[in-house]
C-alpha cells in the first residue's frame, strides 16, 4: 500500500494531555532535544506547531557535522591537496566551510574527494587502487563509532597500508556535562538522543537527573515517539521529579550494547576533543590507540596539522549549538547564510539546527510562529 500511515490514535490523546498539563503547570518550560535527528524530525513532522505555546524545544549539540571545528576541515583540505591522496567523506562534510576553503571547493579545483555511505567504502577503494592513499574523515557520535572501529580493525587485519583515518569522533555525555555548566542556559529537561542511547544505554544520563535535577527521557524519532517523550518530560516537571526514563523501549536497553562499546574500546581511547561552540572538553573525543597508529592520518601526515582556525566572527553557530541563541537571532541567518551559500556548519548539515529552521521553519507571518520562540 502506498498511502502514508495515519497518525496513531494515541497521538491526539497525548497532545490533549500535554496541553492540559502545560496549562496546569502554569509557567513556560524549555526542553532541549539534544540530537540533530530529533531536531529534523520535529520540524519535518510539524511537531513544533502542535506543542502548547508554553513548551519550547531548544536544539542541542547533537549534530556531528555542526560540532566539528573549522580546523578539522582545514586539515582535511590540506590532506586533499597532497599528491595521490583521496579524501573519503560522508556527504554532509563536503560543503562545510573551513577558514579558507571547503572540500567541495577543493574538489572543483581538482582534488579527489569521494562521498561514501560507509567507512568500509574507503577500504574497498584502497584495495582496488593500491597506488593511491585514501583518508577517511571519521566524524560522528556513539552511533557511528562502531562502524569506524570495524573499518580500522579490518584495515589492520587486511594490512591495507594505503588507507587511514582522520578522527574527530565525539562522545555525548561529557559534552552534555560541559553544556550544563553554562549559567546562561536555563533548561527544564532533556530529550536524550535515541540512537546514541542504543549504544550507551540510559545510565550515562543519570548525573543530569541527580546533580542537575533535570528530567530526562530517551525518545525515538517518529512523531509519536517525540510527542510521547515530551509528554513524559512534562509529567516529570509537573510532578517535580527528575529521572531518566526511556520512551524508546523498542531499541534502547539498560546497559546499551556492551559488545559494540567493547569493540570500539579495543580500537580507540578517550581523548580531549574540541567542539565548535563548546571548546575543548576533556574525555569527550576518541583517538586511535597506539597499536593502530599506522592508520592514523594525523600521525601519517603531520605536515597537514593546522593551528586553531579563525571562524567567521559573525557566524553564531557556536551559540546556536549551546541553545543560547536561535538561528533567527544570527545576523547572517537567511541573508548571508543559506543552505546554498552556508557560512557555518549548522546551515550545511542535514541535521543542522539552522538548516532545519531555514528549510522548514520560515513560515509566512501568522502561519506558524512556534519555531521562533526563544
Amino acid at each position, binding site marked *: 500500500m502506498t*498511502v502514508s500511515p495515519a497518525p496513531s490514535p494515541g497521538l491526539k490523546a497525548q497532545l490533549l494531555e500535554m496541553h492540559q498539563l502545560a496549562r496546569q503547570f502554569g509557567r513556560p518550560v524549555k526542553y532541549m532535544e539534544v540530537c540533530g535527528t530529533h531536531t529534523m524530525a520535529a520540524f519535518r*513532522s510539524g511537531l513544533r506547531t502542535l506543542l502548547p505555546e508554553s513548551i519550547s524545544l531548544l536544539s542541542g549539540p547533537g549534530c556531528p557535522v555542526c560540532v566539528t571545528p573549522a580546523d578539522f576541515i582545514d586539515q582535511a583540505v590540506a590532506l586533499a591537496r597532497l599528491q595521490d591522496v583521496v579524501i573519503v567523506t560522508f556527504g554532509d562534510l563536503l560543503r562545510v566551510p573551513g577558514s579558507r576553503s571547503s572540500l567541495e571547493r577543493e574538489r572543483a579545483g581538482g582534488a579527489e574527494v569521494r562521498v561514501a555511505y560507509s567507512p568500509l567504502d574507503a577500504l574497498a577503494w584502497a584495495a582496488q587502487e593500491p597506488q593511491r592513499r585514501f583518508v577517511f574523515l571519521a566524524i560522528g557520535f556513539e552511533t557511528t563509532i562502531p562502524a569506524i572501529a570495524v573499518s580500522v580493525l579490518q584495515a589492520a587485519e587486511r594490512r591495507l597500508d594505503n588507507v587511514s583515518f582522520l578522527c574527530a569522533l565525539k562522545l555525548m555525555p561529557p559534552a552534555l556535562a560541559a553544556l550544563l555548566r553554562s549559567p546562561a542556559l536555563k533548561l527544564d529537561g532533556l530529550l536524550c538522543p535515541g540512537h546514541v542511547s542504543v549504544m550507551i544505554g540510559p545510565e550515562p544520563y543519570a548525573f543530569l537527573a541527580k546533580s542537575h535535577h533535570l528530567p530526562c527521557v530517551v525518545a525515538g524519532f517518529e512523531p509519536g515517539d517525540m510527542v510521547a517523550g515530551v509528554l513524559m518530560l512534562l509529567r516529570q516537571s509537573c510532578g517535580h521529579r527528575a529521572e531518566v526514563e526511556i520512551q524508546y523501549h523498542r531499541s534502547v536497553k539498560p546497559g546499551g550494547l556492551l559488545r559494540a562499546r567493547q569493540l570500539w574500546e579495543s580500537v580507540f581511547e578517550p581523548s580531549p576533543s574540541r567542539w565548535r561552540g563548546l571548546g575543548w572538553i576533556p574525555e569527550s573525543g576518541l583517538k586511535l590507540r597506539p597499536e593502530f597508529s599506522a592508520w592514523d592520518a594525523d600521525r601519517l601526515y603531520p605536515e597537514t596539522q593546522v593551528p586553531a582556525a579563525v571562524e567567521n566572527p559573525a557566524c553564531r553557530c557556536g551559540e546556536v549549538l549551546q541553545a543560547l541563541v536561535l538561528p533567527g537571532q544570527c545576523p547572517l541567518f537567511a541573508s548571508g547564510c543559506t543552505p546554498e551559500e552556508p557560512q557555518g556548519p549548522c546551515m550545511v548539515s542535514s541535521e543542522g539546527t539552522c538548516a532545519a529552521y531555514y528549510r522548514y521553519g520560515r513560515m509566512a507571518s501568522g502561519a506558524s510562529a512556534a519555531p521562533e520562540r526563544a
Partner: protein
Amino acid sequence: MGLTDRILLAHGSGGRQSQDLLQQLIIPLFKDILLTPLDDSACLSLPAGQTAFTTDSYVVDPLFFPGGDIGRLAACGTINDLVMQGGKPLFLSLGLIIEEGLPTTDLQRILESLAAVLQDNEVRLATGDTKVVQRGQANGLYINTAGIGRCLPGVDTSSSNARPGDEVIVTGTIGDHGVAVLSHRQGVRFETELTSDVAPLWALLKPVFEHHPAALHVLRDPTRGGVAAAVCDIARASNVGVVLNERSLPIRAEVRGACSLFGLDPLDVANEGKALVVCNPKETPTLLEALRSHPLGQQAAVIGSVVAESPGLVRLRTRAGGERLVDLPAGELLPRIC
C-alpha cells in the same frame, strides 16, 4: 568488417569504423523511424501552429538501473518535457558521447530501449551524432537528446497559471526513480524490488489534452528536485501558496524506508514517469478518472490545493497533524540520477 566487442576511439573518428558503427548498429535499430537521407542536418515539415523545442542531457550513473537504462531515460525525459508543454512529440535528435571501452552490447541494449520508446510514441529520429572520448573521460556513455513537438491548440500549461482554489494532482507514486537508481549505485546497493518509474507520458496525457484542455492549468514533471522543487516553482511562478497533505502523498513502502535510511525527504526525490497536474477543482473527478484509466495513472491522487495566502510558499500538513514549510532542495542530494 564486424564490430569489435568494445567501442574504440576509432568509432568516433569519422572514418571507416564510424561508418561501421552507424551502418551495423545504429541504422538497423532505428530503420523504421529514421528520417533519411543522413545529411548534415534534417529538413523537417512542421505542422501549422506553435512548435515546442527542448533539449536535455543524460549522465545517469549507473547506465542500467532497475526498471530502465540511460537510453529509455533519454527518450522519456525529452518526450516528457514536450508533453508538459502540451506538445505532441514528433522528432528527436540523438547525441552520443561514448567512453572508449564501453561494451558494444551495452550500447546496443541502450539504443534498443531508446528506439522502443520512440517507436511506441510515433516519434521519428531526425538527426544524430556520435563521439568517442578516451577512457576515464566519461562514465561509459552520456546522451543528449533534443525534441520537437507540435503545441496542441487550446492547451496552456505554464507554471504561472495556478490560481487559488485549484487542486494539485500527482499521477502516481513519488520518489521511485531516485531511490531505484540509488539502490543500484556502487557503494550503496541495497536489496529492493523497487523499479524506476521512467516512462513516456504522452499516452497518459493525450486523452486529457484532447477532452479536457481547459481543465488543465499547470503541468510539470517532477524530475530532479522532486515534487518539492516542482511545486515550489509553481507557487513562485503563479505567486500563490500551495498546501500539500502528507497523508495523501502516494509513496511506496520501499521508498519511504530507503528515504528514512538515507535521511532523504521523498518530496525531494526524482521521478521520471510522473506529472503534477494543477487543475480547476470542478474538473478534478473527471481528470482523476481519465488519469486512473491508464496504467501509468492508476495511483493518481489529489495531494494538495492552491491558496491565496502566503504567496510563493509551499506548506505541508504533516501526517501528525502539524505543519511545515516545503522548500527547494539544496546542494548535492543525489548526484547523477538522470
